[in-house]
């Protein structure tokens, strides 16, 4: 009987529960709707745990979690109610925190990814809120409970936080930053190295001056001090004002000759100050300033070169100013730097205008030079237009630096080749054309053709040039042929050399008849006493038309500094 009563009571209780279920669901819906409007200061009674609390409005889980620790090693979740009944579990790489009887009121976790997890998601499942972290390989998580907050602490092997795409982007950024750092380091090093080099200039030069010229350390010091190729000179990107570079060339001579009226003399040669300065990536300036004593023992000063150059590329370099005319090879290869020359003096055909030379070796105007695009053999061109040389007149300076004697300009066109397959070989020719206007005389058409074959390397030197000057006036033509050949070979510090030269100016030449015919050999030896100083001894014999032969001895110290 009692058993039957118990069964009946159980059935009634079950029926009651079933009857209550829809009502409970309705209450839950109402509670969820209500929680949406609850404030953070909801009644503590609602927060009580246990089955009774399930009837209370759900907790509002504030998923404004903070991310702290080392790069996301800890995530904090807070709520408006106590979170003492939460649980956590791990399923594979997923670590989930379950907050029962709760609704999510916030957006996704701000730290949607971190060093220890690839992603984090928040979802409502049934009456609970699940916060799931997809852990990275080797990572683990631990849940710490507070009053109304949870802390998920991660540990284990940290891996890059980024997604592959972000990985690539960040790697690129890091690479760029490293390059920038490297470039800045290089720049700083370059600037720093310039300081001690400049500071060391004086001691190095002093060391070079007092030390034995043969001493290698002194040579190195001089080398470092004055222009051996180094990064200190002419930086790719000049900073601030242009920096002037000076290279000096000079020579001291002892000359003896059998020419009547001459005396064996010590002679100061030319002091050649070669100046260069880079103005920008494409513009630069170079100049040669010459100070020398004339035959009256008075010093003269002259600007022999002053050229503003614009280099567009390998095919075009433009220059304006005073330059050495590109007639033949010798004039533009050695200019006034006697240290560069093997011999103590220049071949007569390339003697400077002020020393009896007949060629227009200096000019004022515009020049263009460069490689011929696409041409073989390293073919280059040179084109010049300038004032030309004044007619030989005692009153005229030969170089028309400031004023031309007529409106006709001198042209010079040349082609030369430097075949890359034969380093050291250069060959070329040029044609110069001008019209001269001597005072009280008919104008003279001047044409100068020049050709050369030159071979130079560290050991051998072979210079061979031929020049033909043609003057035409009053229907007559006067040809002046000239040539020289020079051979030398390096033996250690010694370079013996031989030269033979010839020039034949017709006796009736309207301008240069006084030169006449001159021909003869010269030989000698150059001895490099240091890397930047040389001693030269040269004997020269010159036969002259209708004049006695000349025998001359030249001893010379030539140096650069």
């Amino acid at each position: 009987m009692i058993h039957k009563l118990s069964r009946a009571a159980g059935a009634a209780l079950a029926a009651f529960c079933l009857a209550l279920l829809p009502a409970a669901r309705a209450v839950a819906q109402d509670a969820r709707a209500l929680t949406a409007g609850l404030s953070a200061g909801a009644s503590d009674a609602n927060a009580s745990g246990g089955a009774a609390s399930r009837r209370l409005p759900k907790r509002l889980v504030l998923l404004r979690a903070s991310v702290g620790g080392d790069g996301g090693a800890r995530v904090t979740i807070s709520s408006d109610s106590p979170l003492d009944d939460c649980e956590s579990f791990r399923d594979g790489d997923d670590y989930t925190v379950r907050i029962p009887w709760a609704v999510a009121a916030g957006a996704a976790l701000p730290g949607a990814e971190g060093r220890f997890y690839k992603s984090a998601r928040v979802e409502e499942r049934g009456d609970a809120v699940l916060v799931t972290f997809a852990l990275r390989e080797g990572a683990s998580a631990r849940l710490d409970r507070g009053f109304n907050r949870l802390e998920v602490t991660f540990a284990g092997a940290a891996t890059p936080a980024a997604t592959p795409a972000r990985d690539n982007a960040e790697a690129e950024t890091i690479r760029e930053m490293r390059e920038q750092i490297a470039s800045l380091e290089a720049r700083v090093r370059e600037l720093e190295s310039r300081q001690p080099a400049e500071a060391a200039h004086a001691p190095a030069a002093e060391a070079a001056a007092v030390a034995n010229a043969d001493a290698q350390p002194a040579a190195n010091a001089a080398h470092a001090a004055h222009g051996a190729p180094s990064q200190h000179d002419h930086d790719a990107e000049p900073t601030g004002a242009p920096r002037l570079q000076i290279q000096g060339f000079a020579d001291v001579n002892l000359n003896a000759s059998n020419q009547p009226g001459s005396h064996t003399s010590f002679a100061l040669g030319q002091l050649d100050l070669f100046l260069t300065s880079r103005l920008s990536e494409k513009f630069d300036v170079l100049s040669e300033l010459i100070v020398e004593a004339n035959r009256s023992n008075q010093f003269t000063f002259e600007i022999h070169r002053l050229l503003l150059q614009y280099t567009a590329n390998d095919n075009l370099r433009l220059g304006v100013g005073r330059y050495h005319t590109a007639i033949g090879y010798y004039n533009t290869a050695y200019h006034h730097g006697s240290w560069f020359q093997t011999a103590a003096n220049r071949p007569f055909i390339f003697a400077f205008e002020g020393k009896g030379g007949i060629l227009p070796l200096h000019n004022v105007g515009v020049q263009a030079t460069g490689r011929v695009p696409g041409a073989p053999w390293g073919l280059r061109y040179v084109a010049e237009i300038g004032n030309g040389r004044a007619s030989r007149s005692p009153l005229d300076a030969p170089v028309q630096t400031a004023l031309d004697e007529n409106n006709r300009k001198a042209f010079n066109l040349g082609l030369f080749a430097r075949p890359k397959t034969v380093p050291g070989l250069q060959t070329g020719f040029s044609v110069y054309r001008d019209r001269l206007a001597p005072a009280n005389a008919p104008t003279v058409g001047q044409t100068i053709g020049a050709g050369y074959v030159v071979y130079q390397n560290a050991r051998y030197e072979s210079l061979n040039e031929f020049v033909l000057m043609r003057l035409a006036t009053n229907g007559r033509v006067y040809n002046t042929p000239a040539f020289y050949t020079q051979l030398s070979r390096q033996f250690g510090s010694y370079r013996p050399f031989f030269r033979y030269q010839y020039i034949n100016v017709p006796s009736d030449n309207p301008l240069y008849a006084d030169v006449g015919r001159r021909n003869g050999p010269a030989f000698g030896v150059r001895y490099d006493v240091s890397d930047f100083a040389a001693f030269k001894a040269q004997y020269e014999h010159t036969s002259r038309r209708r004049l006695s032969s000349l025998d001359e001895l030249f001893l010379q110290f030539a140096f650069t500094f």
Partner: protein
Amino acid sequence: MRSRTLQRAACALSLVAALAAACSAPCGPAARAQAPAEIAVIVNKSNPVDDLPLSELREYFLAERGHWPNGGGKVRVVMLEQGAPAREAALRLIYDMNEKAYVSYFLGKKFRGETLEEPRQQASAADVIKFVSFVPGAIGYVRPEEVDASVKVLRVDGLAPGDPGYKLKL
């Protein structure tokens, strides 16, 4: 009398020249012994050039060419400082010069106004590599084993360091 004196001077000069001819230049065997077996020519990775004939490579190092082809910008040659074995090797293999001739050559180049861009110098292979990796038009050289991924190694006449027949080899 004066002519006789000059003739004697000429004879003395002949003797000096003959003595000079008997001398031979020491070629620095010690330096040669220290030089690396090969050198690798390196350029900036942005440089489109991968291969150069040796003759053309010489032109770049000799400042005969100052610009890379096809608007590739200015050539910046970087050398190791004096005393570096790889520099000795480069002078012999690329320049065909000794130290003195090298200095004289670039002084002459500058003097003739053909270039103001002398090769820069760096103290170490690491500095050379850093310079080349930073400067787009740079070209330099280091030992092959010193090359890293920040620069590009040029093939010379179609051959890379280590290839049989590679020409920049002592």
